[in-house]
């Protein structure tokens, strides 16, 4: 069973969002997503300053199996992309909720993450996909 931390919000496209409490949020892909994709060989995180709409492709994760877009779970401006992933894409596999984070966003709307799934709902969603 994959790791689904209780304090995060989730999307159907398998991103996680951590609300940092200061109007910013950290975004990455879930443990389930990294497990499905396999060993990462390249990660392209966005540059600071980019303005994102919710659902917009904002990063690319490339594994030995596939290259996949990562979608912005919430709207906002990119404060920072995780530059460390350029040399260590495996962080996304080893520590998806920690050093494998992809980007930090300044939220356009404080309530933007309200519509996302909580851990229980995401767990049920993953189970339903895994029919």
């Amino acid at each position, binding site marked *: 069973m994959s790791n689904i931390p209780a304090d995060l919000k989730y999307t159907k496209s398998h991103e996680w969002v951590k609300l940092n409490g200061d109007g910013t949020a950290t975004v990455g892909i879930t443990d389930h997503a990294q497990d499905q994709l396999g*060993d990462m*060989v390249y990660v392209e995180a966005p540059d600071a300053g980019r303005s994102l709409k919710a659902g917009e492709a904002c990063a690319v994760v490339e594994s*030995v*199996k596939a290259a996949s877009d990562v979608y912005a779970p919430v709207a906002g401006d990119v404060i920072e992309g995780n530059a460390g992933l350029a040399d260590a*894409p*495996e962080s996304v596999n080893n520590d998806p909720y920690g050093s494998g984070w992809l980007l930090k966003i300044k939220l356009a709307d404080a309530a933007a993450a309200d519509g996302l799934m909580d851990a229980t709902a995401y767990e049920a969603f993953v189970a339903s996909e895994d029919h």
Partner: protein
Amino acid sequence: MTMLIFEHSRTGRAATAQSPFEAADCSDLPADQLRSDAPGLPEVSELQAVRHYTRLSKKNFSIDTHFYPLGSCTMKYNPRACNTYAMLPGLLARHPLGPVSAGQGFMACMYELQEMLKEVTGMQSVSLTPAAGAQGEFAGVAMIRAYHDARNDTARTEILVPDAAHGTNPATATMCGYEVREIPTDKQGDVDLEALKAAVGPQTAGIMLTNPSTLGVFERRIKEIAGIVHEAGGLLYYDGANLNAILGKVRPGDMGFDVIHMNLHKTFSTPHGGGGPGAGPVGVSKRLEPFLPVPMVGYDGDEYHWITEKEKPQSIGRLSAFMGNAGVLLRAYIYARLLGREGMHRVAEYATLNANYLMAKLRDAGFDLAFPNRRATHEFIVTLKKVEKECGTSAMDFAKRLLDFGYHAPTTYFPLLVPECLLIEPTETEAKEDLDGFIEAMTKILEEARTTPEVLKEAPHTQPVRRLDDVRAARELDLAWKAPAA
């Protein structure tokens, strides 16, 4: 492992019989362009060079030696006759800048190929000029753009692409300056019509579809899809990747498509890939006809002539110096002539029959099908998700183990929608006994997965190289051989 030719090198060794008689005169080259040290070429004897390359050639894996069920690639046999006739001296020695009057035979072949491709796809007009499938796709979407631009309908910014599509489709749309919007597939493998209805609008430039789709099933509601997209003012693009399944049976033009590209290396038996010369002709409906790439071949009932920008001022232009790759187009023409109208029908019939035979037999052997309720087209998908869970052996392990049995692995992990999948396409050119041999090998490997899974995980056991570390190879890319420090 085979040594590189550089590793055979010994200073001063040479095959003098191959040397030029006299050194080239470089006195007219600027001094700063002359090299100061000798080039790092391997120094070997003639026999060493002959042995090295002969050994390498024996390691080739090809359709001429083995079954090659690589899904979505249509690895069919290329009849030798196509090669022989395309190399007739008159065709081989023709110069593309020679006078039209001296190339009437070649141009007649090309005109007839245009006509035959029109007939078999149901399109209004065909241009042979795209020099590969990718260029055909590019030309196709460029024509969609040219059409909307010509009508001053410039607010159309989106191309719709189903999630089962070939990876090249979103790449092509992006290259042509469009945003890509993905359309989901339903559980039966058809495009989700409700999602499509919700996605179309005044921003829709078109949709790119493969039919049969990459899921190995025929898109049954294609007429409805065409209606929805046309209603919104968008055009329909047909990716010819899977044309082999429907050749002479169903025509993209009749399904409502406005533009199609054909991969002659798949459907019309020209040599495959490796970055070599290709051919990706495009066919269009009436409204896209003015935008076709040039040159094309015309016929006035007496003589063949080039159709250029002069006759087609709205053309998207030229895609290469001449009309694509003449030698490849000739092979496709000869293949089509060898088949004839009857033979063309049989291609689709046997490709589909072989795929369905293989699918039924593998299901009986205990393999799970991704779409068990659907009839296969020319290819089908096996999913090893359950086997992976129970035995820990992945689709990759099955693929590697097949090499030990003398089979090229099917396409693995594509389409991305189906977990642990093998996409299997036998083509029409395999005999029943060859299909039975493959079924036997697959059955044996499934048995091994249950009893001795380590045999799969360590496969291949019989190949020149064992399992490669593909993660390390991708992370630490190292493509150039460097001489060891002396």
